[in-house]
């Protein structure tokens, strides 16, 4: 018997999509659910090294670290380089609430000319360029689950979902990608 449990990514080895939209599991990242009032935004922005967005559906990104606006006092922070976000948050004395959700969430990357169509197969959000430009982010639904969607490029999207729902999300996006390619 193994002495040590091996960590296995929830979507390890999965791949799918179509010629128009690739669907791939994202690399592990650290994530933070951050809540803070208006007085703490400045201090927190300084600590995390990026301006916490204050407009709906916007995000800020600096070298692999993203801050996504989820609500008027709520953000999702993602660091693709695995930086210790909790450590940074614990050094801030301004009143805030930070919860490490690195292992609660996992992400799926959808990219290609049909990426928007693949997501729209199950997501009611308007992904048009004028209302959901590059850098736009929103919490919404994908089929029967809740996701956080971030548009990272013209044809690139990052779908954040809870890890226990990830196989459903992945399957849904692969179906959408195949349908979009027809």
């Amino acid at each position, binding site marked *: 018997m193994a002495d040590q449990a091996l960590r296995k990514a929830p979507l390890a080895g999965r791949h799918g999509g179509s010629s128009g939209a690739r669907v791939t599991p994202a690399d592990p990242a650290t994530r933070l659910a951050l809540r803070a009032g208006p007085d703490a935004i400045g201090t927190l922005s300084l600590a995390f090294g990026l301006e916490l967005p204050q407009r*709906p*559906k916007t995000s800020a990104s600096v070298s692999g670290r993203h801050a996504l606006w*989820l*609500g*008027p006092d*709520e953000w999702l922070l993602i660091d693709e380089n695995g930086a210790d976000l909790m450590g940074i948050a614990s050094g801030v004395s301004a009143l805030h609430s930070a919860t490490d959700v690195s292992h609660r969430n996992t992400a799926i990357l959808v990219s290609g000319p049909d990426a928007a169509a693949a997501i729209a197969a199950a997501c*009611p*959000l308007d992904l048009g360029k004028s*209302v959901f430009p590059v850098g736009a982010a*929103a*919490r*919404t*639904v994908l089929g029967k689950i*809740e996701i956080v969607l971030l548009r990272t490029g013209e044809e690139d999207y990052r779908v954040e979902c809870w890890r226990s729902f990830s196989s459903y999300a992945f399957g849904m996006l692969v179906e959408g990608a195949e349908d979009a390619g027809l």
Partner: protein
Amino acid sequence: MLLIYCPYCEEERSELEFRHGGDAHIARPTNMADISDEEFQEFFFLRDNPKGLIFERWRHIHGCGRFFNAARDTVSDKFYMSYKAGEPKPDIPGVTTATEKTVETYEATEGTAK
């Protein structure tokens, strides 16, 4: 698909992202310990269930997560407007609140039926 305007996200989003939260503008008694059981029942359980204009709480649970208030028509399902929680009940031009005179109540139509 029904679109609902979220005053916090400042745009119309799909009804799939929202959850209903019951009547809005229900004032909680300040002297909760002193009121009678009947008064508590009136506050806690009894709602008007009007036909036509109603002010309700809604929550953008799969979006920004915030509660807000909305004016809706219970017959046509049309959302007249929505506004942030804590703001006063607005006037909806051209729409009047249903009264006992405009609604066919059971007492008026079937009250004498045996």
